[in-house]
């Protein structure tokens, strides 16, 4: 397993509903990122299709693995990189049951997926109308260490990041489609999740305007001490490379020993109180 490597935050806007064009864009960004030495390239939430698709999601969703993940696998093999991107997933066992999913692909092919657990259905968001929530947080074993995936609104719920950290992930990858009015929330929470878990956190947000919603970009790589290692521009497409060195975790984990001090008994209390909210 590598201790240090470069990660690329591929902050793109999407061609709405045009998977072919978006896969082409993924390849273009992977190629550019690879030239700059990146071994992991991360794209935003639902970057295969765009975020606001409403009823068109039913026609665009695919099984995983499926045609689109196979196309992205080819890109990963060709450039020898890991790729994370988002797509609407069609359940293997049903015909119109969808998930908002993050996919992890490596140089040797498909590795795993994460189905978004917290689906925002408030304000301008209507995800529960279309998606079924996921039930499993997982960290995936790779040459770049264990990688954990979360999606956008999940970051408001520290338990998801905590779970994948406890699974062994030292890099939490959060793919996102966040509109501009929520920028300060994410700028705060991304740093918080990194610090409280003594882990690296890569946040990659969408840009562009979909149905009047302006996605703010501002993708960032954060170190285990909360330091912002790399940031992408606001509001426009960008490709930013940041370097991860897992050796940085050890001194921080000793300096702010949040993992050592975790109190298991509180989680039972949390469960009990949450059920009675």
């Amino acid at each position: 397993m590598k201790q240090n490597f470069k990660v690329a935050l591929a902050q793109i806007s999407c061609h709405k509903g045009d998977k072919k064009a978006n896969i082409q864009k993924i390849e273009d960004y992977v190629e550019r990122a690879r030239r700059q030495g990146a071994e992991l390239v991360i794209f935003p939430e639902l970057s295969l299709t765009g975020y606001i698709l409403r009823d068109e999601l039913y026609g665009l969703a695919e099984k995983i693995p499926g045609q689109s993940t196979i196309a992205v696998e080819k890109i990963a093999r060709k450039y020898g990189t890991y790729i994370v991107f988002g797509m609407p997933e069609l359940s293997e066992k049903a015909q119109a049951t969808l998930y908002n999913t993050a996919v992890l692909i490596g140089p040797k092919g498909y590795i795993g997926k994460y189905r978004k657990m917290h689906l925002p259905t408030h304000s301008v968001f209507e995800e529960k109308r279309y998606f079924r929530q996921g039930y499993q947080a997982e960290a995936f074993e790779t040459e770049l260490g264990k990688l954990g995936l979360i999606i956008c609104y999940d970051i408001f719920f520290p338990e998801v990041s905590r779970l994948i950290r406890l699974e062994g992930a030292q890099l939490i990858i959060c793919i996102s489609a966040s509109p501009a009015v929520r920028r300060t929330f994410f700028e705060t929470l991304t740093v918080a999740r990194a610090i409280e878990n003594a882990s690296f956190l890569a946040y990659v947000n969408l840009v562009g305007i979909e149905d009047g919603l302006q996605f703010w970009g501002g993708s960032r790589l954060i170190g285990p001490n909360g330091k912002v290692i790399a940031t992408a521009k606001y509001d426009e497409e960008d490709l930013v490379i940041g370097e991860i060195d897992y050796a940085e975790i050890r001194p921080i984990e000793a300096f702010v020993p949040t993992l050592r001090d975790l109190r298991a008994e509180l989680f039972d209390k949390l469960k009990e109180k949450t059920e009675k909210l």
Partner: protein
Amino acid sequence: MPNPISIKGRTLKLTQNVLNLNWEEVKTKITHFIRDYVEKSKAKGIVLGLSGGVDSSTAAALSAMAIGGNKVLGLMLPERETYNPKDVKHAELVAEKFGIKTEKIDITPALEALEKTIPVFDPEDKLCKGNLKARIRVLYLYYYANKLNLIVCGSSDKSETMIGYFTKWGDVAADISPLMDLYKTQVRKLAKHIGVPDVIVEKPPSPMLWPGQTAEEEIGIKYETLDLILYGLEHFMKTEEIADQLGLQKDLVEKVKRRWQIMEHKRRIPLTTKIQYRTVGFDFRLPFT
């Protein structure tokens, strides 16, 4: 930007401060939005009505900043009854300052011809007659839009849209309405920020449907107060709380709230009744392209 979550205490404090935004950021967002929409729709530019008032001047200025004044056409559409040379002068002032092309068309002959063909036309009914003027202006805007492949940019603000102070299928008719999420007093601040001349920003707003009409007199409340009431309603505040904080009679706040609620029919596509699987206006949900 003010953030309701960051405000301490049980209820929002309704002061003029809550209406303050980062105007440079707002300008950037609106110009991005306009540019993006024009590009995606593959239109050649924008056409809008230029009345010389603060809303249309601001919409025109932002359009020019977004796509260049040479791609923005401002139609001045005066008519005899409400004609005021000052308004035309103000429209010209804005057009000149932001490099917008203009065309002036007197709509009086069209209006009079139309009135003659309506058997029940009542010249004394100033509201019906006024609405006719607002709707006739839309015909001109959409003719130019069709003919020259332009987007019609509306200039409705949030205050007027919320209380339904506009003509149904009239002045509100447009392809995009970039100011619709800004209250009137916020439009004024944005206007000042982007350099719309003070003489326009500071004059009393009027829909110009009949002579001497001013919005605040007709609505019966100053925009400074109305905007705070509407802001409170937007943030789920109770009418008692709003009235209490602003030192107003509860009845007045209730009246504004009722007006906001009953005007929903002016803000949506026409209601139908559900008969089939997916229905326009209910659950036929498609994104804009």
